């Protein structure tokens, strides 16, 4: 391989951290709570082994290495999108009504962003690097979009988010936000992407995300919360019209006051 000593050390450190996170996840039996995220951690470790083997066998500048690297990137980003969907599901699905309301929005958002990314990628298809950056950015926007929308629902309805989920979500969101910004900077022009501070942020964003995941899994996971006891199906239908009517009247009155 043609990596410098610093690059080799960084790569080794990243791979070791990935192994530590996976070990912690298995030890904490995270698979029972977030199976897709646990699979994602397995893929990260496998990815390092596959990339290392490819680089060793064919060289870092070979076509094979190029395709293997980007295929693995595509797999990882796609699974990250499924992971954030899984996180939203874990947070919202105990509240059946809210989950039924939220899920179509999440799917619609993902479909729109992916469609947008596909169109943009086709437009820049004549240039492989630009197409890859556009596609990757589209997938990362999907990740961050699903995450923020799901968390907004949690916030709006006042759902508690468990500590380990907070840190896992932060890691995923932070890494995706940095990747989106980086791809945008690269597309506009390499100037800002060459800033030393930005280079540090970009290169370490995934390591920072993994530190967040170590924090998430360092302590044993809390006991599972029992599913919330829901109201009878017709209570909402009985209460909602009354509340709506009153809130409407209240607003009308308030409008009359200040107008």
């Amino acid at each position, binding site marked *: 391989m043609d990596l410098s000593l610093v690059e080799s050390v960084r790569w080794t450190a990243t791979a070791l951290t990935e192994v530590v996170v996976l070990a912690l996840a298995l030890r904490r039996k995270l698979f029972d709570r977030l199976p897709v995220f646990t699979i994602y951690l397995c893929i990260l470790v496998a990815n390092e082994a596959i990339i290392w083997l490819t680089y060793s066998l064919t060289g870092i500048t070979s076509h094979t290495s190029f395709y293997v690297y980007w295929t693995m990137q595509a797999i990882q980003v796609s699974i990250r999108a499924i992971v954030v969907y899984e996180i939203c599901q874990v947070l919202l699905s105990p*509240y*059946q*009504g*809210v989950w*039924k*309301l939220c899920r179509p929005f999440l799917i619609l958002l993902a479909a729109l962003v992916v469609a947008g990314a596909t169109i943009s990628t086709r437009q820049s298809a004549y240039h492989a690097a630009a197409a890859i950056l556009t596609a990757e950015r589209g997938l990362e926007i999907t990740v*961050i979009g699903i*995450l*923020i929308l799901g*968390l*907004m629902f*949690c*916030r*709006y*309805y*006042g*759902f*508690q*988010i468990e500590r380990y989920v*907070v840190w896992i*979500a*932060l890691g995923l*969101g*932070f890494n995706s*936000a*940095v990747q*989106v*910004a980086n791809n*945008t*900077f690269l597309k*506009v*022009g390499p*100037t*800002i992407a060459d800033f030393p501070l930005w280079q540090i942020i970009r290169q370490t964003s995934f390591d920072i995300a993994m530190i967040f995941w170590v924090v998430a899994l360092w302590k044993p996971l809390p006991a599972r919360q029992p599913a*919330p*006891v*829901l*109201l*009878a*199906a017709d*209570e*909402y239908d*009985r*209460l*909602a019209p*009354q*509340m*709506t009517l*009153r*809130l*409407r*009247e*209240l*607003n009308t*009155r*308030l*409008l*009359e*006051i*200040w107008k």
Partner: protein
Amino acid sequence: MTIFVATLVFLAVLITLLWLLFGSSTNEAVLSLDALQIEKILPVNCRHFPQISQLLSQEDTQFMRKRAPHHVANKWRAERRRILKQYLNGLRQDFARLERLARVIAALSPEIRKRQEWEWFWLALQFHFSYRMAALKLALGRFSPEALAGLTEMIAGLTSELENRMALIAEHSPSRMRTDVGG
């Protein structure tokens, strides 16, 4: 320009994410029937309206205008405005409690309607905007006591209805809900 916008968006996304994950919720989380204490989420400030009504009486206003020295009348008006401002703020808190209750009901319902939820969200936005404008009007000294009375009656009426409804729910599931509504 694009770089500037991209940087701003990046920072906004990060701040939003941190706020969503770590920001303290303005509403106390009461999302289980076991933890639902109705007295904590029903409006309370609107119940003080009789005292406020006394403060707003026209006789007092006329008396102060005719008999009190100018500087005393001014001081009295300023004090009255301060109390009204506090009361208006209390009404806003009441509305927030009702809004919270609506969300708790929605969260604990197995089926909710998109249109209904959207309407509540929109009404809340409208209310907060109207509240700001009303507060501004009060600050400018152009607030009518009758309007405030009407507003209070509305919240009090809604409170009463909700108390009755929640008491009914509690009757159906007495072990799951703590309430002192109705004794």
